């Protein structure tokens, strides 16, 4: 008995070693294979790291089109399902960044440019095509360090059928019209707003839009003062911001703190709520639930002045190129493909031209049309938009704003506490 078990264990050990060895050898083969290929100028792989989102399928479709058109470069999109910033941090520390990668606009692009990790893209063809308003998000030291891939819109998405049913003829542009609309919806038995407040990042988006509405033309000065450490979140119109938050709380149904973003997005798509304060990405869920739901979009009406209701539009994704990548030339070729607005079947058609997809930061005649996109285009063509506030503040602002404002929604913090805590935490952040 003893002997057999000994023999068994030796046999098992040998099997395992053999297994390991075979893994090793197959890896070696793989490496040799790709090396040989790149030496003879065959296929070069260009990898792009992207953060996890519902758009991953579309990115892969866009990459497949590129790969099917030529065989010199294999373009592959790698979605990081975990925390994207963690991934970037680890790769930066290990000096092992992929050829291209998504960055958040403003602070993060500047940080990577400052540390010399990303390539200056000022002379790339896309620089001529993109809107001037989109450039600031990717600039550092007067040069473009990333490609602003798409711009996103934050505002109030609404169910047109419910509005019509409740007798709301025109979308609200002032706070009193907004309150009025909420009352009309409630009278019809509808929940006016879909709650998303369990996820604190949604509170950050909300608060950022309200800050933009409160600051208006003063936004740039205020951001400068904040980044210099002399500003305060207690802005002149702070009362109006918190009044709007109160209206949101009153009109988000019961137990609104228990609903996370997915629950909120689904509530609009399912017709459980009439409005949703979020971005176009919130409609991605609708594509599988209720793609034909007529959804419109209007800017947050925070003040009594209709001219203050501007749509919050800003660059959402920047694509940076690794300066130390092995295949910089091929990477730039891929970037050119991604930013070609004359290509009607390429990257843009696959990734930025469908329900819930963010539009590109340049002129592009899309095949997809929807009510909310028409509304968006109207705001853009009338230049009735403003950039997002939080993206231009120090990195990490979104976390402190989201978490603190969530306390206001939960009723554990009042206006004075929220503003005081925000100032304290922001001071820590930039110190």
């Amino acid at each position: 008995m003893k002997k057999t078990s000994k023999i068994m264990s030796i046999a098992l050990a040998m099997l395992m070693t053999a297994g390991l060895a075979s893994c090793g050898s197959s890896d070696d083969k793989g490496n040799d294979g790709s090396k040989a290929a790149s030496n003879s100028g065959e296929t070069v792989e260009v990898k792009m790291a992207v953060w996890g989102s519902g758009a991953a399928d579309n990115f892969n479709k866009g990459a497949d089109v590129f790969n099917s058109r030529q065989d010199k470069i294999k373009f592959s999109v790698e979605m990081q399902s975990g925390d994207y910033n963690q991934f970037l941090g680890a790769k930066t520390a290990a000096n092992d960044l992929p050829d291209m990668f998504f960055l958040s606009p403003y602070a993060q692009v500047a940080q990577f440019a400052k540390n010399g990790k990303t390539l200056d893209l000022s002379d790339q063809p896309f620089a001529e095509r993109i809107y001037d308003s989109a450039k600031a998000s990717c600039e550092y030291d007067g040069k473009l360090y990333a490609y602003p891939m798409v711009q996103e819109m934050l505002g109030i998405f609404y169910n047109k059928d419910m509005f019509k049913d409740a007798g709301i003829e025109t979308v609200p542009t002032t706070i009193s019209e907004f309150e009025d609309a909420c009352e009309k919806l409630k009278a019809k038995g509808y929940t006016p707003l879909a709650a998303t407040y369990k996820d604190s990042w949604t509170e950050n988006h909300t608060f950022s839009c309200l800050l933009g509405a409160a600051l208006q033309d003063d936004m740039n000065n205020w951001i400068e003062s904040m980044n210099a450490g002399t500003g305060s979140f207690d802005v002149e119109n702070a009362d109006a911001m918190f009044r709007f938050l109160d209206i949101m709380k009153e009109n988000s149904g019961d137990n609104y703190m228990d609903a996370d973003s997915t629950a909120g997005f689904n509530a609009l798509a399912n017709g459980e709520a009439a409005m949703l304060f979020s971005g176009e990405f919130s409609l991605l869920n609708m594509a599988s639930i209720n793609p034909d739901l007529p959804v419109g979009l209007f800017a947050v009406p925070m003040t009594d002045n209709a001219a203050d209701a501007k749509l919050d539009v800003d660059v959402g994704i920047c694509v940076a190129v690794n300066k130390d990548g092995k295949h910089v030339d091929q990477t730039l070729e891929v970037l050119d493909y991604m930013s070609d607005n004359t290509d009607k079947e390429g990257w843009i058609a696959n990734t930025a031209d469908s329900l819930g997809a963010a539009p590109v930061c340049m002129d592009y005649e899309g095949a997809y049309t929807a009510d909310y996109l028409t509304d968006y285009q109207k705001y853009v063509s009338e230049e009735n938009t403003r950039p997002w506030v939080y993206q231009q503040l120090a990195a990490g602002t979104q976390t402190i704003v989201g978490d603190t404002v969530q306390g206001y929604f939960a009723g554990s913090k009042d206006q004075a506490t929220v503003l005081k805590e925000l100032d304290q935490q922001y001071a820590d952040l930039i110190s």
Partner: protein
Amino acid sequence: MSDLLYKKNRKFYILLILPALALYCFGLVGPLLAGTIPSSFYDWNLIEGNKDWIGFGNYVKLFSDTTFLHSLLFTMILAVFTIIGTNILAFFVAFLLNEKIFGKTVSRAMFFIPNIISGVMVAFVWIFIFTGAIPSVAESIGLESLANVSWFGTPTMATVSVIIVSVWQGTGFLMMLYLAGLQTIPQDVLEASTLDGCTGLKKIIKIQLPLLMSTVTINLFVSIAGAFKAFDIPFALTAGGPSKSTQTVALNIYNDAFGSFKTGYGSAKSVILFLIIAIVTIIQLSITRKREVEA
């Protein structure tokens, strides 16, 4: 075991623990001594790439960090409730399952299952129970007040939710240990006590609990260490919200070290957490060990 035998075989015994000890040092002691403790003295940010010696700067800073101090307080609250809750519940369940009841093995497995499901999965199931199942059931049986409870709405309710789920998951494992302990109590002792007229609650307190003290020691040790390290359930259930009110120390360290990349600062907090757990468990072990008796 006789001392003579022990002395004779001592080298062999030491040899036997060597593989485990080596792995333990490689995976735990080594990184702690060579990684966490030294880096806690640096102002080290992974993304910015700076690494400057600041001595005890991180330690001084964390005692004025209100978020960290609150997470410490929350962890204590969570620990007290889950340690007491899981142990009492586990003992109670183990005691019942030790009797001759119908479907004993199946019931045991049922109580143990939560322990083998990952914390994240458990949290998602409970999110559904709190926001989907409880309101629907309560509404259909006319309990409006229960249906309208917002389980994550206020810091207090979110804390209650985290405690409920933590106790639910932690009970199974401790129950198994208590059950094993109950079965090692010799039948003759129990029979003798019954003959002497010691039954019911008296039997539990005077006979079974004292003989179970070694299991209690282990269970308290396990649940204390587990409670102070609580991460997955608060992370997946509330993400520390609303407004960081249910953030445990482990979650706070994670957010600092892997969210803001303050590696040095996070390390300093980890060292403090390590010291707290070490002190609490050493005190607990010394108290409960004294109460252990042998049959």
